[in-house]
């Protein structure tokens, strides 16, 4: 399978859907759908995420790769498939601001990696806290673009620590990339540098929670 990862990644980066589809189908001849996702799609998206952090791949490529992989995986692992990872109960949200691309990318990459999670869209603090409690979430992913929104994560974390002890909160977005201390300042459990980081974080938390 390893020999497929690099060509699959390159086909995603160059938006060569035909080639990416062909390589994915090739993986499916050897593995079950969830194994193909974990052995081919997840590593390729991880590599693309690292390349974006390093500056050698652009956000447009990350977005299109995630969207395409989401479609590929959806075909073989529909939301109702028992192999989909519905636990821990997770959601993603854009807090306060109106910039949705980061959330959209993480959501696609999570689903392309076999996870099912709630998409809360955009919410303010009060609405978000209430929804997290109503849905009995165990993992919350918060995406922001603007600094004031990032600072509002502090209130979300403080209130959820009291009302939902044990919840894990990860943050991502530009303010956290430009200020390495900010995720700790707002009280998050972790930050993601790229969409692929969200997958590894949730996987790790999933194992810790079992």
């Amino acid at each position, binding site marked *: 399978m390893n020999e497929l990862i690099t060509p699959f990644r390159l086909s995603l980066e160059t*938006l060569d859907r035909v080639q990416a589809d062909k390589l994915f189908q090739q993986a499916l001849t050897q593995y079950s759908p969830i194994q193909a996702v974990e052995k081919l799609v997840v590593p390729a998206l991880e590599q693309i995420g690292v390349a974006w952090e390093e*500056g050698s*791949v*652009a*956000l*447009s*490529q990350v*977005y*299109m790769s995630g969207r395409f992989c989401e479609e590929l995986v959806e075909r073989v692992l529909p939301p109702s498939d028992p192999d989909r990872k519905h636990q821990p109960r997770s959601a993603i949200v854009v807090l306060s*601001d*109106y*910039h*949705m*691309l980061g959330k*959209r990318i993480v959501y696609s990459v999570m689903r392309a990696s076999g996870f099912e999670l709630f998409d809360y869209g955009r919410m303010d603090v009060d609405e978000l806290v209430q929804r997290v409690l109503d849905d009995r979430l165990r993992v919350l992913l918060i995406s922001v673009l*603007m*600094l*004031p*929104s990032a*600072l509002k994560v502090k209130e979300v974390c403080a209130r959820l620590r009291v009302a939902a002890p044990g919840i894990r909160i990860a943050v991502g977005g*530009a*303010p956290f990339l*430009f*200020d390495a*201390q*900010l995720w700790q300042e707002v009280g998050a459990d972790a930050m993601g540098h790229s969409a692929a980081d969200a997958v590894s974080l949730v996987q790790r938390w999933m194992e810790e929670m079992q």
Partner: protein
Amino acid sequence: MNTIAMNSMQRTLTALGQQEPDRVPLFLLTTLHGSREVGLPIQEYFSRAENVIEGQMRLLRKYRGDCLYPFFYASIETEAWGGDTVFLPDGPPLCGAPVIQRPEDIDSLQPPSVADAAGLGRVLDSIRGLKAKVGDTVPIIGVAISPFSLPVMQMGFDHYIELIYEQPERFERLMQANIDFCVEWSNAQLAAGATAICYFDPVSSTTNIPRELYLKTGQQVAKRAISRIKGPTATHLASGRGLPIIGDIADTGTAVVGVSVLEDLAELKAAANRRVSLLGNLNGIEMRHWTAAQAELEVKRAIAKAGRGGGLLLGDNHGEIPCQVPDEVLLAIGDAVERWGRYPLDWVDDWTDPKPA
């Protein structure tokens, strides 16, 4: 090197001419700090040109910068296209719902008239008012969102990426409408007294699109727009990366590139190769909790890397300093520029960065 004291305009023009002025020009691009300075909520502050004129003049005196920046907020442009703005108490106003709901909407899209847009009129009044106060002694920086980057607000970034890749004809139609608007808006600001236009083009950054796509899209759009703008432009990538395309950006005819803290200023200076000047690259997000000593170190580091020979306007890397950055930091930056920004920068050869990257 020039030892005669210069005014801000002389200092800036000398630096842009790749010569050494009396000191490194300081371009502190502060907007929301003006509302605090005049004691008004953000929405009220931007509701009248007189407020912004007063705010900008106070900030100029207080922080000892070398430019005026009568930029209101980005979505004031999409207001002209029929959009709205969401005002926050503690941050830059945000763009409301996209004016292009479906790609098909582009087929009948017509650029609005600048003269009919009340918000743009307030910006023009601010520029006129500032020009009346400073004449030709201080550069007044107008702002236009690039035709290539405006669609992020017009239709949402995700839908726009899909449009670029999947619908080239509609993309071209949108670019033509946006170019016409951008040119009219830029030229109106120049006619009102702006010295130059900051052409905000974050989508062109290699953070957002690969270079090969930039060469086919953002660069071509910039060439078409900038060639019709009747004054100098500064292309700003709003903290996105630009090192791999800095020569390509210079080819668009722009005079300055706003550069990111994610890249090394010395490498950027070398890549610019005196074809464009650099604006940047202090970290505005991190600046919020800098001490005075950190501010001084960051200023020294930037000047040491890129100050020699002119061609550097020291500023933040995003094109707008967050209002959460306290006065003490901005004043410390001004002090550091006064102390370490005086040419001929003799100290640079003997200086060792205590915390090199």
